[in-house]
């Protein structure tokens, strides 16, 4: 295997890069006694092979993976807010998640864009069918959040896989968003002093800025492999989408947690919390990246 082979195959490149990054991080944590626990690291050992394995298996496997993850993550959101007790609303959101991913798999962009509209209309029918009004507006609103964030936004990950140039986009957005989260945590622990938002008290100015700067540098380094057709100003835009979009997604879901009075969305990922705690940044970066980069430089949706 030489560097040209790696450069021509984003999946191979990112798989190797991921393994190298994990091994280096472990070595650094051991040698330098960096802050942070081994528990989240061990969880990464499970998440990364499963996610990359699904990508290696092909578009169908990846779509099934995204669908299952979206459904489980939405279940967490519904359990945190109490929406899960409203079965009919929940079933409509599940249907929307499955439909979005199905249309992403077959590449029907028209239906992919139409599903949220139909889902919201179906949700509007729920109080009418149930003949109930008390608190229905609130449950309706929460279910719309479910359709948009867990159905529409996350299904962009399925759609990107099948788009021309999509695999480079997909791998970049998934891995850089996760790295951005991890870097914020590490930098925040190491040098963070100034908190910048009460919504997420662990976020520090230093952690966010340093993570953003690192992501932009890394974006320039991998641009020839992830999106070789994009000019330098576009590469900067890509880095900024990850750095800023990740924060927006994180804070949006942190807001849900603060309102519901819980610390994490669940306990399925030891050291991370729930799946939503891991996916919140991607919920914003994936659609933002796909549409902005697609509009400016092509490759999404077709």
């Amino acid at each position, binding site marked *: 295997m030489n560097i040209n082979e790696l450069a021509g195959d984003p999946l191979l490149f990112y798989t190797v890069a991921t393994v190298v990054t994990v091994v280096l991080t472990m070595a650094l944590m051991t040698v330098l006694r960096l802050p942070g626990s081994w528990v989240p690291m061990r969880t990464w050992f499970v998440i990364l092979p499963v996610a990359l394995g699904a990508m290696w298996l092909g578009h169908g496997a990846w779509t099934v993976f995204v669908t299952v993850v979206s459904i489980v993550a939405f*279940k967490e959101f519904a*359990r*945190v*807010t*109490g929406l*899960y*007790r409203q*079965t009919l609303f*929940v*079933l409509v959101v599940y249907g929307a998640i499955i439909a979005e991913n199905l249309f992403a798999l077959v590449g029907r962009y028209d239906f992919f864009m139409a599903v949220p509209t139909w889902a919201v209309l179906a949700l509007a029918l729920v109080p009418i069918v149930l003949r109930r009004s*008390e*608190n229905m507006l*609130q449950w309706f609103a929460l279910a719309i959040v479910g359709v948009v964030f867990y159905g529409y936004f996350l299904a962009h990950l399925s759609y990107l896989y099948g788009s021309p140039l999509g695999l480079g986009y997909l791998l970049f957005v998934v891995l850089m968003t996760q790295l951005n989260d991890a870097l914020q945590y590490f930098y925040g622990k190491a040098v963070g002093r100034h908190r910048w938002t009460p919504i997420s008290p662990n976020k520090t100015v230093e952690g966010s800025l340093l993570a953003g700067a690192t992501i932009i540098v890394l974006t320039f380094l991998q641009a020839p492999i992830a999106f070789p057709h994009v000019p330098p100003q576009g590469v900067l835009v890509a880095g900024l989408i990850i750095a800023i979009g990740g924060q927006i997604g994180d804070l949006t879901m942190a807001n849900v947690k603060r*309102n*519901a*009075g*819980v*610390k*994490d*969305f*669940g*306990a*399925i990922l030891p050291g991370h919390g729930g799946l939503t705690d891991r996916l919140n940044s991607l919920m914003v970066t994936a659609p933002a990246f796909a549409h902005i980069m697609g509009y400016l430089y092509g490759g999404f949706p077709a």
Partner: protein
Amino acid sequence: MRRRFRYEPFPDLDLPLAARLGQYPRQPDLFLDVARVLARTIAASLFRLQYRLEVVGAPPNMPRVAIMANHQSHLDTLAILTALPEQYRRRVTVLAARDYFFEHACSAMAANLFGQAVAFDRCTELGELRRWAKLLPNIDAGWFLIYPSGSRKRIEPHSGLAGILARSGWAVLPVALAGTAEAWPVGHKVWRPFRTVRVTFGDPITNADEHDLPAELLAFWRTHGRLDSAERGENE
């Protein structure tokens, strides 16, 4: 007066999967509810394929019933659930030892799905009994399956949880199992198929707190909890 909207997070958000599966009352879960229907249908079908099941008597149509059975094998719960018509089977919650079934997610999932089990903590028995004593009088409808002997290795019933159920006004349904001890003996790693299993439903005891429940259960089990000699010969 309209009730103000409040977020209502589920109380088990932080619990690991095994603990969530063992909790009672169960929290709503669409996946588990569907999976439980599928699992108990599969389990009952497999049981009927492998064993000749004889059912004596019939369960009563009552809202609150505590099934109290003799315990001699891992197959006991499956035998009783298979013997019950679906309309009753779906109501049943089985109390199973937390230390045996609910320490790990896989065994907890199997117990919860195939056996409809929730956890009973034998290690903190007094505290656990107090918890159930508070809970049981407030439950309007449901069927519990318990094994008052507490173990497959003894037959004499404890009065602990059985007594609490009786005092809480639950109708007690004595059930005697015969043949399961040979079908999957204690200490054996695998079950032995193609044998006869008999489930006998007794008459429900509605004012159970006025009865000597342990003695009556023991007498019922001793009378009906053994196969006759011909059936035993087939089971050998």
